[in-house]
């Protein structure tokens, strides 16, 4: 392969990485935006976000296609292969995160006109801040190909999970005090789940970054476990527990 083709490949790879980063950065901005839409009951803003989602889908699919074309035509190896493979996994991850933000915007429409307890509003704001922080870390770790930064996101997400559990508790409490009806309580529980899922997507992105740098994926752990189990079964001659 000539030098020219190689540099063309790297130019294309940079463009794909750039597009992934832009999609990710868009979600980093989208999280606080839909939270404000939700807390300020901004119907117009909700409409705007929902319309913009089609654009995200188009951009995601374009990145995926280009990554696939690169695989087919250039047959990259080692680092380059991991970058392309990661792009294929990251694009749908980010696209799904955009959808979650849209879900929050839709919930804002359904909750229109309902007054929320300041404590619940505060809890929503906190979850949003935490989810955004995780997502920003994930995008910036991807930009800087920083596996150490990426590895910390899993720990950050534990805090978001705690907030989510506490939020569900608060919903029960407020509902028991008859401050909100069942419909609102269900919507709020879903909203909590959306933020929690956004954090999970950030964690998934971070795992792909670790993979780009080290070639290691968490699935290896389950592979090893399965192999160890199979070996144990072969040794004792009967299936082990679990």
């Amino acid at each position: 392969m000539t030098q020219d083709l190689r540099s063309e490949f790297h130019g294309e790879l940079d463009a794909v990485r750039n597009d992934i980063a832009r999609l990710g950065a868009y979600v980093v901005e989208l999280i606080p935006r839909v939270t404000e839409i939700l807390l300020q009951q901004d119907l117009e803003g909700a409409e705007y976000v929902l319309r913009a989602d089609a654009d995200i889908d188009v951009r995601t699919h374009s990145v995926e296609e280009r990554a696939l074309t690169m695989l087919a035509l250039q047959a990259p190896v080692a680092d380059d292969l991991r970058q392309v493979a990661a792009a294929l996994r990251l694009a749908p991850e980010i696209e799904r995160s955009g959808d979650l933000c849209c879900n929050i915007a839709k919930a804002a429409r359904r909750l229109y006109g309902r007054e929320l307890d300041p404590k619940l509003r505060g809890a929503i704001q906190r979850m949003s801040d935490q989810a955004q922080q995780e997502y920003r870390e994930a995008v910036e770790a991807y930009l800087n190909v920083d596996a150490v930064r990426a590895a910390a996101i899993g720990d950050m997400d534990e805090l978001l999970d705690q907030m989510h559990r506490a939020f569900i508790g608060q919903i029960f409490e407020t509902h028991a005090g008859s401050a909100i009806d069942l419909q609102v309580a269900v919507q709020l529980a879903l909203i909590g789940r959306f933020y929690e899922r956004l954090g999970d997507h950030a964690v998934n992105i971070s795992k792909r970054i670790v993979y780009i740098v080290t070639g290691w994926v968490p699935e290896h752990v389950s592979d090893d476990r399965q192999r160890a189990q199979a070996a144990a079964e072969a040794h004792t001659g009967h299936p082990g527990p679990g």
Partner: protein
Amino acid sequence: MAWLLGAAGVAGVAAGFTAGWILARRRRIAEPVDAPAAPVAPSTFTLLDAHRTGVVVADAEGRVTYRNAAAQAMTGTHVGVLVDAAVEKRLALSRHGEAGDEIVELFGPPKQVLDVVSRPLPDGGSVVFVDDITERRRLDQVRTDFIANVSHELKTPIGALSVLAEMLVDETDPSTVGRVVGRMMSEAQRASNTIDDLIELSRIELGDDRSTDPVKLGGVVAAAIDRVTELATQRQIDITATGAGLGGVGSPVIVAGDRLQLVSAVGNLVENAVKYSEPGGPVRIRIDPATVDGTEWLEITVADQGVGIPQRDLARIFERFYRVDRARSRGTGGTGLGLSIVRHVATNHGGEVIVSSVEGEGSTFVLRLPASQPAQPDPTPPTGPQPTTWSARQPTTQQGAA
């Protein structure tokens, strides 16, 4: 591009020349420049790097050939990625001879508004300026909101007065007249309070008649608590004050300033804390010495566990007449000027006021004042053992610190 012209002025060359320079530089050609300007010439790029406006230059093919320090600083952050997308878009348009700009609004926090402006260059390339217009946008908003809000705040009681007066014209029943007159008086009081606060605010804003006497902060806090004792008792709020120079414990903590203004500022913070707490909630006041960036400060912290302030309003609550919740503001009865007064008093004293809050969990305000010279010995030593904390329900003990 005023700054660019300014740079040219310093270098003593025509403005057009400066643009030529940039091009020369990005082609990495060291061209000699006319005599007087020569020694200053490199500083143009130092200036470009020192400026907070991001500058990106691209050649005729759209390849980026130069970025100044401000444009590079964003690299590797999600903001940088979004700005790059806007810059790229502008460069593409600029190649087709289209000058123009694009606004990038970032949700932060903190919120940021960037203006990305492109201009074609004579050689077919383009230059893009990335300007942070957050503050300009905010000030525009403050200005328009202020006019609307001040009219609203004054119009409401005056409208009520005129309706009530009309009612009185044909009213003969003495008990109704009495009731209406009572309401008229309270509406008049409301208008009068607003105007009083406006006058106080403009006096503080001028800041010229402020005295710089040594003021004991313990006394300021005690006087501020005194002002809200009645309201606090009514709402069963428990006010606790602790810290240096309070209740006669330790040497008194002294700042140079205007006692009346300081009492007014701390009073406003304490009053808000009491107003926005749930009945029975605690309000904590502390005085702490603090060292920030090598400077000695004294901090008065007022913390409540009340409704808190939504994040989007946090940056704006110090504006005159800004209301987080208009519907509630009539119930709490403030003039909407309290926090503006606090901020101006802080600025007048060379300090600042800092707020942190989570909606539903409460707010914490810190009034930070520069510490004055080492505290002089107190000429009137405390007369007996004094409590270090007190409650608004026991107003008598407050005198100890005053």
